[in-house]
């Protein structure tokens, strides 16, 4: 198991947003995380990426417990993410956003730049061309020079995926990557997610687009009121009575 959650709980006052969730993501797997609104999906991603600390329970990446680490250390161990409400750096250009994402894979001490060493220049050149090829991969290469705030909604989502990939993560957390996209854009993102997984990154995908999740995921975890109500292959989950009840309500 690459990423394993065990009895993770997070309470906000009296509300248990995540209530003893346990599941795990395998190496190279596309793992779906679905559930009705307010089920605790985003809270769970915030717990994994270190923006929140669990009230109890453990989160492991490989053999390492990460639930008490600050976000930048968790990213350094190989988890990166996108946000449901898009958090690009608005005044920076698309390519600069991706360069910021490369922070951990760059070795560029400031003294080298202060002394105008050729190594510094070379490193900057590599960082930029790597960022550009990531933008190419997500299909927004021609918008590299535009400020993030001037990009369309769909473009912003794709730049955010490129930025998350820039740190070369072992696990990529995607929080509703296709929200607000049209059908053509959705299938482009689906193809991208599959490709990312074949390159060895695991993907944890939070999505409302159930068809997309059924199509691309090998494993699905269903969350409702902070609890895991089903965990298994898409076929098994789709026929699970608890899942049907959570989404459609019980038969009268």
């Amino acid at each position: 198991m690459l990423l394993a959650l065990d009895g993770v709980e997070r309470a906000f006052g009296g509300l248990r947003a995540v209530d003893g969730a346990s599941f795990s993501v395998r190496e190279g797997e596309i793992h779906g995380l679905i559930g009705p609104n307010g089920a605790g999906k985003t809270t769970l991603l915030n717990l994994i990426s270190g923006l929140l600390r669990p009230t109890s329970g453990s989160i492991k990446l490989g053999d390492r417990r990460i639930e008490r680490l600050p976000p930048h250390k968790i990213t350094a161990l190989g988890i990166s993410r996108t946000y449901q409400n898009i958090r690009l750096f608005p005044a920076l250009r698309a390519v600069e956003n991706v360069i910021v994402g490369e922070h951990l894979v760059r070795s560029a001490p400031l003294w080298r730049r202060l002394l105008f060493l050729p190594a510094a220049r070379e490193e900057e050149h590599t960082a930029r061309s790597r960022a550009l090829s990531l933008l190419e991969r997500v299909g927004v290469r021609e918008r590299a020079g535009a400020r993030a705030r001037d990009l369309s909604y769909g473009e912003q989502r794709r730049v955010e995926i490129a930025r998350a990939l820039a740190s070369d993560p072992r696990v990529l957390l995607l929080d509703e990557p296709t929200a607000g996209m049209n059908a053509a854009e959705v299938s482009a993102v689906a193809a991208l997610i599959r490709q990312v997984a074949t390159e060895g990154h695991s993907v944890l995908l939070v999505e409302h687009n159930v068809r997309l999740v059924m199509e691309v995921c090998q494993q699905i975890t269903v969350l409702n009121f902070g609890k895991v109500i089903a965990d298994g292959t898409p076929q098994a989950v789709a026929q699970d009575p608890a899942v049907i009840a959570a989404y459609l309500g019980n038969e009268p």
Partner: protein
Amino acid sequence: MSTLSELFLTYQSLIGFVGIDALLALSVYATLCCGQLSLANAGFMAIGAYAAAILTFHTKLPFAAVLLASALAPAAFAVPLGLPVLRLRGVFLAIATIGFGEVVRLALVNWDFTNGALGLVAIPQRAGLLTIYLILGIALFFFARLRGSKLGYALDSIREDETAARTMGINTTLAKLSMFVFGAALAGVAGGLEAHFTFMVAPSGYSFSRVVDMLVYAVVGGVATYVGPPVGAAFMTLLPEVLRGLGESVGLGPGPLRLFVSGAILLAVVLFLPNGIVSLPLLVAAVRMRRQRG
């Protein structure tokens, strides 16, 4: 003697003050560029100035060593101060750092070793224009190279969205603290230079209004790049001299008119030139281009 060198001699002290104020403006910009409004810099300046003056009086250290000490002394205060206060954001950080500045000033008022409120006078003049502008040049060079570096991008991202920056693997606490300490060192050197340029240090020179001046320089010049703050400092420091004649002709002393005019300029810049006066040429060019197109 040529008119040019005569002019230079007449305005020598003014030129020196422009350089020192430019350093102070950059010291505020150091934290502003990663989105942190810190107002502790008058306090850091005081620590640097007093450290330098005391060393000059009591040791035989060369001036370069004295200046180094005037940078390191406030930096040593900035580390333990920065660790807790940089957890605060926005207005809370501003208030906490104002508190620090006042504590320093009041401590100096009550410190007998440095003559309390009277301060230290007859400090030998050891700072010339060359030294001042050499140090300003070094500071500008640093900021120029910071732009586009890995740390530079990290600071940009913290200013834009600190939470997102943290999940990019950036140790935001360390980055913010580094700039806070660097700003303290710059303010300290400016203090050390000023002490050896005006021959005196006194607590009243490092009051809250001093840090407001620094902030005004930065904002009026423009905080989008490192070029703005020194330009703003030059503009706001030279302006009272230009206005001196004007004030006398309408029967006002230079003091009240200066405050009035700098207040009006600050207001105008904030309202109409959010990127400061350095953005004015660009704006004019844009307007001209639009006109030419018809």
